[in-house]
């Protein structure tokens, strides 16, 4: 069994890119994604001794998701700065061509980043990582019915945003 448990270096070397991809889809930007991966690897270090060989990427996805959710909770405890409520105050016109330059995947990522976090986590774990509903339920500690609902509502919001 010990042979099936990767070393920390193997996880970082062989799965660092996977962790980054998941982290980026959750966080929506590079700097936060890098921080999430670093923190996830710290937890991997602590957790490897108890890791049971199985779906390594599922396990890693769960860790980086938990890091993401912990980070969100920490950020909510800090903050907040209010924006002006009247859009007109800050809305000088600018070139319409700007939107045309935006890449479709950027648009999808922005819509993903704008989802409520619980919907975003469910959609990313399902459609980016490829976990089953049962695995997502275990990873996020909610019933399968809740996972269903979050995935569906997340996709519906994405559709509205992208249409």
């Amino acid at each position, binding site marked *: 069994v010990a042979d099936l448990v990767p070393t*920390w*270096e193997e996880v*970082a*070397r062989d799965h*660092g*890119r996977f962790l*980054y*991809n998941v982290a*980026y*889809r959750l*966080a929506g*930007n*590079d*700097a*936060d*994604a*890098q921080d999430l*991966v*670093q923190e996830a*690897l*710290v937890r991997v*270090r602590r957790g490897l001794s108890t890791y049971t060989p199985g779906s390594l990427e599922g396990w890693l996805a769960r860790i980086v998701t938990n890091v993401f959710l912990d980070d969100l909770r*920490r950020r*909510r405890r*800090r*903050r907040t*700065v*209010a*924006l*002006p409520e009247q*859009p007109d*105050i*800050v*809305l*000088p*016109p*600018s070139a319409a061509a*700007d939107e045309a330059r935006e890449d479709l*995947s950027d648009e*999808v990522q*922005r*819509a993903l980043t*704008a*989802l409520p976090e619980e919907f975003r986590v469910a959609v*990313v774990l*399902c*459609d980016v990582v490829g976990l089953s*509903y049962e695995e997502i339920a275990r990873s996020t500690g909610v019933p399968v*019915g*809740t996972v*269903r*609902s979050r*995935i*569906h509502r997340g*996709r*519906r919001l*994405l*559709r509205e945003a*992208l*249409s």
Partner: protein
Amino acid sequence: VSERDLLSAYLDDECTAEERALVDERLARDESWRTELDGVRAARRAVRELPWREPPPGFVAALLEDAPGTRVAKLRRRVALAGSAMGTAAAAIVAALLVAGGSQGDVAPAVATLAGVAGASDSTITPMSAPIDLERAAQKYDIRRKVLVGTTVDEVRRDGRLIARVYAKDAADGSLRVEMFDEAGNVLSGTVPSGPVATTLGESALVDWDVHDPRTAGDNFTLVQRRVHEGGIVELSYSDGVLSVTILEQHGELDWDDVPEGGVPAELAGVTARRYTTRHGDVWVFERDNVVYTCVGRAPADELAGLAAEIAG
């Protein structure tokens, strides 16, 4: 749970035979169900077809170099926790500046402890990220607002160049995120501004030397906060409504033997300086009139250099 929530499970083959039969029956007689199924199918495809997002070059190698347990990794982890106010790499430079300090007689650039930052137990200062003030920023930038699934996105541009995107969610938690972009359009940092909403100036009486703290500097930057840290290090925070630049001032002569490696010699308004280029922005260190300056910012390189040059000049 709504019956329609079954549609995604149906699409993902994650429902029971009984549920599948129910969905089939609804789809056969209700066009709105068919429309919704097409919609979530399209959304699923859009996410599944997102390209694999590659980390920046050298990222994985850096992870391996910084294996947990080493001093560097520990330092970076701490900085990462504190890093919401500035890019991690830039914060790491500041932390490195701290580590490098301590020679006799002269001043090693920057700083002390910043209270209240999670995980920052010693010798780390995290420059403040000034509150976003779009009304003020509109004096300098073109700002265009979009609304996307309950999130307001303000794109901040100057001469067509994207400077920042400010994301604000609707009322629930009011959370706010800012992405800054460098000259090439790469993301400098993704941050949640922290710090006081109100402008605060004070504490100048706590040091016994003349702090150089102009109320305005660079291109429409205003001094929004002044703090004094342990050891008499003065932190000045400037903002133009979107970008934040922090100037750390220390009284004394700069010990050039005690600045960290990695930077390059440079010049700011005729003053000898050292410039550290990080993925998240630049850090400038220089001395003028017996004051050592460390300039960092959530700002593109040209904005930071302009402000630093004015301070240096």
